[in-house]
């Protein structure tokens, strides 16, 4: 049921929405989340973000997260798309779509999916700063807390 992709190319939320809803009349609510590259990290300007992953393992982790969402809510469709490679401020990073018969399930599932994607799917992010230096993005406590609220 879940459409899971890791790709370098950008995605179109409209096209993905249309693909998920195509031919379906049982969907009552379709919620979405799009993550984009911020132009600063704690106020420090960044010029680019590079995302790395491990093919196969990462998709498997995403599939487990989608399966967990499907176990918790009655969903009619899930789309998870995560981009990798070098992205610029303003670029799309991640798309989460969750479809359900009722809005609350779709909204909650979308929130759950992005919280767990942030903490349980192996993506490694390196930020490049305006001064030419770069550093790996450490796990953030607030991301962990957001994920923990679904435990």
């Amino acid at each position: 049921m879940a459409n899971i992709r890791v790709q370098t190319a950008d995605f179109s939320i409209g096209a993905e929405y249309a693909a998920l809803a195509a031919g379906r009349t049982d969907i009552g609510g379709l919620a979405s989340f799009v993550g984009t590259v911020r132009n600063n990290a704690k106020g420090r300007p960044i010029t680019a973000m590079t995302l790395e992953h491990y093919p196969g393992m990462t998709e498997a982790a995403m599939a487990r997260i989608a399966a967990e969402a499907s176990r918790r809510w009655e969903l009619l469709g899930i789309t998870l798309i995560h981009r990798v490679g070098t992205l610029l401020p303003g670029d799309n990073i991640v798309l989460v779509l969750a479809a359900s018969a009722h809005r609350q399930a779709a909204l909650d599932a979308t929130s759950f999916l992005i919280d767990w994607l942030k903490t349980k799917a192996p993506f490694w992010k390196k930020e490049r700063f305006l001064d030419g230096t770069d550093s790996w993005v450490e796990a953030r406590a607030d991301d962990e807390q957001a994920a923990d609220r679904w435990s």
Partner: protein
Amino acid sequence: MRPAGAILLGAILFAWPALLNGYPILFSDTHAFLIQAGDWRMIWDKPFAYGPFLRLLHQGVSLWGPLAGQAVLVSWLLARLTGAAPIRHVALCAALAIFSAAPWVTDLLMPDIFAPITVLALYLLATEARLSPALLVLAGFAIASHLSHLVLAAACIALLLLLTRRWRVILPLALALATLAGTNLAFYQRLAISPYGAVFALAHMTGDGLTAPVLATACPQSGWSLCAWQDRLPTDSDRFLWNADGPVWTHPGGAIGLAPEAQAIVTQAVRTEPAAVATAALSNTLHQLTRVSLGDTLGPDWLEGSVTNSLTQYFGPGELPSFRASRQADNTLAAWASPLNPLHATCLVLGTLATLTLAWHRRHTNAGTLALLILLALPANAFATGALSGPHDRYQIRIAWLVLLPGLCNWAGAGVGPRARPRQLAK
């Protein structure tokens, strides 16, 4: 029968496991290679070589293309090696198809088949009268296709230089090194052969208990992230590398971020515990030498969500259903292969005895050179994989079948090399 027809027939014989399966045999890493050239991007632990090879031959149409390419390459190389008459070539291919794992390795869409191709192509480069550009490119590509092939090639080249004094055998290794350094420079802006390979060495050395003493001495003043794992280091290298809660995945930079630290720890372990490192390497090499069973790449493990995504993304709508209809996807392929293991093991023992005999009795001829080369290539491959990464059946099965070649060539009355001649012994 025409020679081209014999090569084609030989290739079909090598394709029998895929035909039985209903699809080429895949491994979860096949997905990474498909991405490599599908998206034109680097995967941190894989040389940028085999992915473009797959892309060149599948063209977004079908993975049967790369399979056909690999089968024809192996058949062509064997024909060139033996110079046998067409019918004898077909007989030799049939024997290998039945009595060895060669067709199973050929039909796996991974760089594994390029390990034996490295050995055979280097042998031909050293023994043929003229330098063949095709062989040079093939050998260079084969070496570049997997990092373990660098060690294998270095060992083979050293022996061939000693025996034949043909310096041109160095050229493919130079070509491979230039390819690896060039692609790492282009993608990662790092002039390195394997920028992040130390992570694998760290994983297996940790599994062997070799890094704990280093951490005990260096932590916490070193500031290494692994210090936090000092009391709970995974004892299995695969868990170290691939567990979602393990030291690699939880590092902010994953394997890439951990690599500098891994390099420092590995270097320190080798420097302070050379005897223990050597003993572990020897033990793993010997263990790897005996791991030659079919099976560990024949199931559907990890294929769903990995290669199934690639088949959807890079191919037409018919490709994924073709894979899903295969015995591998259905988890029944291994049951067809496992009865062959006792037969293959027996043949490997007999082949080793024949190769040892030929290495001694034909030591002044090309046949003796080939036998010696294969006898060296097997432990070299076991060291490059078992000692540097960790023993797995897949690593040794890819090359062990070469030990059948000298005896089969002798049985088929074929030479080894189109101009089989007494070898000029090195002075």
